[in-house]
């Protein structure tokens, strides 16, 4: 790892609506992407709902910001870790999640999935490896 580059992990723990944490957390990720740090994003607990397909906020007067997650790949935020147990506990599978991808410039711009399903134990290891954790 380059000198002066830190490992930042953004941890999303809350549902996308109901509180403003998810929306304002996403704003931090987008701004942080400009800083040339090593970045990953974790989705645990109700945070996995942030990546749910088919979000419809029409009746609640809330802005549906889920399309913004699709932009993360263009911002070089390509490591999204989703905790498997959190999905299972909520009756969700990978198929319920947005299809988020990026173009790998080191591999002939092949389109690859940004989403990695990891176990709770693996998530704990990932957290252990970070220099800076921002928790929303």
């Amino acid at each position, binding site marked *: 790892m380059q000198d*002066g580059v*830190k490992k*930042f992990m953004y941890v999303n723990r809350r549902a996308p609506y109901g509180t*403003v*944490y998810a929306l*304002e957390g996403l*704003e*931090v990720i987008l*701004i*942080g992407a*400009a*800083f040339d*740090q090593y970045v990953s994003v974790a989705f645990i607990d109700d945070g996995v709902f942030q990546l749910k397909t088919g979000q419809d906020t029409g009746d609640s007067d809330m802005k549906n910001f889920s399309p913004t997650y699709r932009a993360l790949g263009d911002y070089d935020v390509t490591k999204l870790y989703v905790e498997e147990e959190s999905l299972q506990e909520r009756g969700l599978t990978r198929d319920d999640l947005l299809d988020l991808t990026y173009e790998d410039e080191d591999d002939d711009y092949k389109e690859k999935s940004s989403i990695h399903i990891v176990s709770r134990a693996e998530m704990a290891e990932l957290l252990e490896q970070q*220099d*800076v*954790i*921002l*928790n*929303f």
Partner: protein
Amino acid sequence: MKFGILVNEGPYQHQAADTAYHFTKAALERGHEVVRVFFYHDGVNNGTRLTTPPQDERNIVNRWSELAKQYDLDMVVCVAAAQRRGIVDEEEKKRQGKDADNLAEGFNISGLGQLIDAGIKADRLVEFGD
């Protein structure tokens, strides 16, 4: 040790706002450096000088202002979160055409980049929230 401090919750509503202050004060008193205190989410409400708690209660806003003065502390309120919640400095008042400003002494309004920058510069970024 160089600390960065992130305050995510509002004053009086949530003890995180108090704990952040006590932690910051203790760190400074022990000779540690605090590179920045960043206020985000409802934490921006720690920076309004219109706060008027009952006489026999702690004044959370003034407490931060005094700490900033004593230690030349860099306290930044996130502009996007502040605009949503009506925290305005003189410049924002003019720019947004508002009839008042309310940012307390010692606080500055700036962007989220200041939070990332604090994470880069500090040895530890400590987050106070729910």
